[in-house]
C-alpha cells in the first residue's frame, strides 16, 4: 500500500527505514488514520518524521503526492454573518453524517447552490443546512470530512491544506554541519584521569580488597574520585568583517563548544583578524571589553589545547608590520605575527580551523597570509573531515 508514496518521501530526502514503514502499515490496519486523509497525514507525520527540521520536506512530499485533492472555498456574502458567529465544540463521537458523505466536489458545489436558495435562516449544529458546528457538508467549524468551508476559521483543516501551509520551513538545515556532528567530534577530545579534586564517590575495589585483607577480613571500604576529563581548551575566534559570511557555521561551532560539559575548562576569546595586545571577551570586539594577551599567556598554562577559528585572510601589513592593527586608533608595537608566535610557543598543541575550503586557500584574496599562517599552525577546513582531522591532531603527541 502507498509504495509510491514511500518512494516520494525517500526522494524528498527523508530517512525512512522499513521498521517505521511497517509500523505505519500496522497503524493503518488498526485504523489509526480514521479513514481520512487528514488522519493519514498526521499518522505519517508522527511515525515517519523524527525531527522538526524534516517537517517541511515531509509537507512538501505529501503535497506533491496528494495534490489535486485540495478543495477551494468560495464564500457567499449572505452566509458570512451566521457563520462567523459562535462555534461550539461537538463531541468527537458524534458521527451522524448524511449519506452525501462521498459527494464529489462538483456535486457538492451544485448542492450548495441549491441549498442556498432554499435556506432562509441562520443555522447551527445541523446535518443538512449550511451552518456552524454541524456535520453537513457545508458551513464551518464542522466535522464533515469533505465539506465546503464557508467563512470563519478552518478549525479542522484538510490534510492537503495543512501540508500546503508548510509551517516548518524555517527549520530546514540542509548541508550545514549540525550541532550534533560538532558534539560527537568534540567527544573524542577526552583525556581521562583520576587525578582530580572531585569528591570520592566511586568504590575503589582493588584498594578495598587490599585494605580488608590487611585488616584480617574486617571490611574496610576505600573510595576514589570518578575518572574525569582533564582536557582544557582555549578557543580563539576571529570575528572580523571577513568572517561575516561564516557566522552561522561559527555560531554552531561556538554553541556546541559552550554546551560541552565534559571539558575541565573552556576559555573562549575573540580577535579581529589577528592577535595583538588584547583579546576580546565578546564577538563584537569592543574596546575595554578585553583582556591583555599577556595576561592569558601568564595565566593559562601550556596544558591548554588551543583552537583558532578564522579565515586567516587580511592585509599583509596587519600580520607582519608594527602598527598593522586595522582597528581605528589602535597601534601595536609588536607585529601580529609575533603575538601569534608567542601563543604558538606556549600552546604546543594548537590547530587552526578555517571556514574557507582548502581548495581555495591558494587562490582567494588574502592567500599570502593564509600561507604564512598555514606554515605556523596545522590548518584544517571547517568541514566534517577537517573537524575530525583537527581533533586527531589536537590529541596526538607530536604537533610539528
Amino acid at each position, binding site marked *: 500500500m502507498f509504495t509510491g508514496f514511500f518512494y516520494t518521501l525517500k526522494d524528498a530526502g527523508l530517512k525512512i527505514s522499513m521498521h517505521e514503514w511497517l*509500523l505505519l502499515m500496522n497503524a493503518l490496519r488498526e485504523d489509526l488514520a480514521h479513514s481520512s486523509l487528514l488522519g493519514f497525514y498526521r499518522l505519517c507525520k508522527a*511515525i515517519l518524521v523524527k525531527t522538526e527540521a524534516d517537517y517541511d520536506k515531509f509537507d512538501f512530499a505529501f503535497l506533491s503526492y496528494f495534490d489535486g485533492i485540495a478543495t477551494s472555498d468560495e464564500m457567499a456574502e449572505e452566509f458570512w454573518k451566521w457563520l462567523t458567529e459562535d462555534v461550539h465544540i461537538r463531541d468527537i463521537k458524534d458521527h451522524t453524517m448524511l449519506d452525501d458523505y462521498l459527494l464529489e466536489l462538483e456535486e457538492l458545489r451544485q448542492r450548495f447552490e441549491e441549498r442556498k436558495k432554499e435556506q432562509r435562516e441562520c443555522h447551527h449544529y445541523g446535518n443538512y443546512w449550511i451552518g456552524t458546528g454541524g456535520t453537513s457538508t457545508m458551513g464551518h467549524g464542522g466535522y464533515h470530512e469533505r465539506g465546503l468551508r464557508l467563512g470563519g476559521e478552518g478549525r479542522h483543516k484538510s490534510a492537503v491544506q495543512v501540508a500546503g501551509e508548510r509551517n516548518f520551513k524555517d527549520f530546514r538545515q540542509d548541508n550545514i554541519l549540525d550541532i550534533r556532528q560538532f558534539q560527537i567530534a568534540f567527544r573524542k577530545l577526552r583525556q581521562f584521569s583520576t587525578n582530580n579534586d572531585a569528591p570520592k564517590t566511586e568504590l575503589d575495589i582493588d584498594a578495598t580488597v587490599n585494605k580488608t585483607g590487611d585488616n584480617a577480613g574486617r571490611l574496610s571500604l576505600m573510595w576514589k574520585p570518578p575518572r574525569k576529563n582533564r582536557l582544557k581548551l582555549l578557543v580563539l575566534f576571529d570575528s572580523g568583517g571577513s568572517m561575516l559570511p561564516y*557566522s552561522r557555521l*561559527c555560531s554552531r561551532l561556538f554553541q556546541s563548544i559552550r554546551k560541552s560539559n565534559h571539558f575541565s575548562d573552556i576559555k573562549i576569546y575573540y580577535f579581529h583578524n589577528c592577535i595583538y595586545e588584547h583579546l576580546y571577551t565578546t564577538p*563584537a570586539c569592543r574596546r575595554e571589553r578585553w583582556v591583555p594577551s599577556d595576561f592569558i599567556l601568564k595565566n593559562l598554562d601550556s596544558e591548554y589545547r588551543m583552537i583558532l577559528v578564522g579565515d586567516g585572510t587580511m592585509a599583509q601589513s596587519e600580520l607582519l608590520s608594527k602598527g598593522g592593527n586595522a582597528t581605528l586608533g589602535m597601534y601595536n608595537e609588536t607585529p601580529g605575527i609575533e603575538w601569534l608566535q608567542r601563543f604558538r610557543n606556549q600552546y604546543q598543541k594548537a590547530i587552526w580551523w578555517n571556514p574557507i575550503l582548502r581548495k581555495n586557500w591558494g587562490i582567494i584574496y588574502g592567500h599570502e597570509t593564509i600561507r604564512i599562517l598555514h606554515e605556523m599552525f596545522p590548518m584544517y577546513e571547517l568541514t566534517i573531515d577537517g573537524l575530525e582531522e583537527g581533533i586527531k591532531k589536537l590529541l596526538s603527541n607530536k604537533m610539528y
Partner: protein
Amino acid sequence: MKKSDNNFNGTEAYVASEDLQNAVNIAIALKKPLLVKGEPGTGKTMLAMAISKQLGKDLLIWNVKSTTKAQDGLYLYDTVQRLYDSQFGEGDVADIGHYIRLGKLGEAFTAETQVVLLIDEIDKADLEFPNDLLWELDAMEFYINETKETIRAINRPIVIITSNAEKELPDAFLRRCIFHYISFPEADMMQEIVKVHYPDLDEQLLHHALDAFYRLRGENSLQKKPGTSELLDWLQALVLMGIPLDKIKEMPYIGVLLKKNQDIDTWAEIQEKGYSRNQWL
C-alpha cells in the same frame, strides 16, 4: 472507528493542539514511546501530567541529569549495604534480591496497573544514553545479572520522553519513537492558554501584552526567547503594578521576560538603533 478507553484529548488545565492529541493517541495505540520536542516552556513536562490525570493513571517521573546512566533507570545493586550487612550480621545477606533497588523504569514495569512514565529531558544525559535504552524500551524488559531474573512489564507503560530542541538524538533511537514537535503556540492558542491560568484577565490588556510579547519573540538575536511561563509571570506583573495599556508596548519589567543580561542589553540596543551586533552569542 475503533474506540478505546485510552483516548487523550487535553484537560481543562492543559490545552493540547489537535496534532498533539493525535500523536499521543497514536503512540498509545501503537505501544511506542512518544518523543516530544520543543522549546522550553511549551509544556512538554506538563503533557505527561495531563495524560496521567485524564486517563487516571499513576505518573512516574524519571528526571535525567547530565550524570544519569541508563542503568540508573533499571536497577541498582547496593553492594556497599550488602558488604556492611555481612560484616555486622544484619539483614538477609544471602538474598541478593534484597539489595536490588529498582529504578524508575523498573518501577514502571513492575507496577500492578498501567502507569505513565515520563523520561524528562533525555538530551541532558550523555550522547549515548538513549542508545543504551533501546532494548528495554522495545521489549519492555531487562535482565538483572545479580539475581538472574528478568523483569518484564506487567502492563506496558505509556512512555513520554521529552527533549529540548538543542541536542540531536541518535537515529536508532528515533526510529523506535513516535515523534511530535510542539511548536511555540501562536497568538490565538496562547490566548486560550493564558485564559486557563487567569480566567478574569482583561481582554484589552491581554491583547496588548501578546502583541508586545510576540514582537519580542520575533527577535532572532536573543539567546533565550521568553516562553509561556515567562509570559504568565509578566502578565501578572503588569496587572499587579497596574500598568496602563499604552505603556505595555514599551515593555516594562523586561527582566521578567528576558533572563540573560546579554539579552537585555541586546534588546535595549535594538530599541535604540533598530539592530544588534550580538548575533553570535
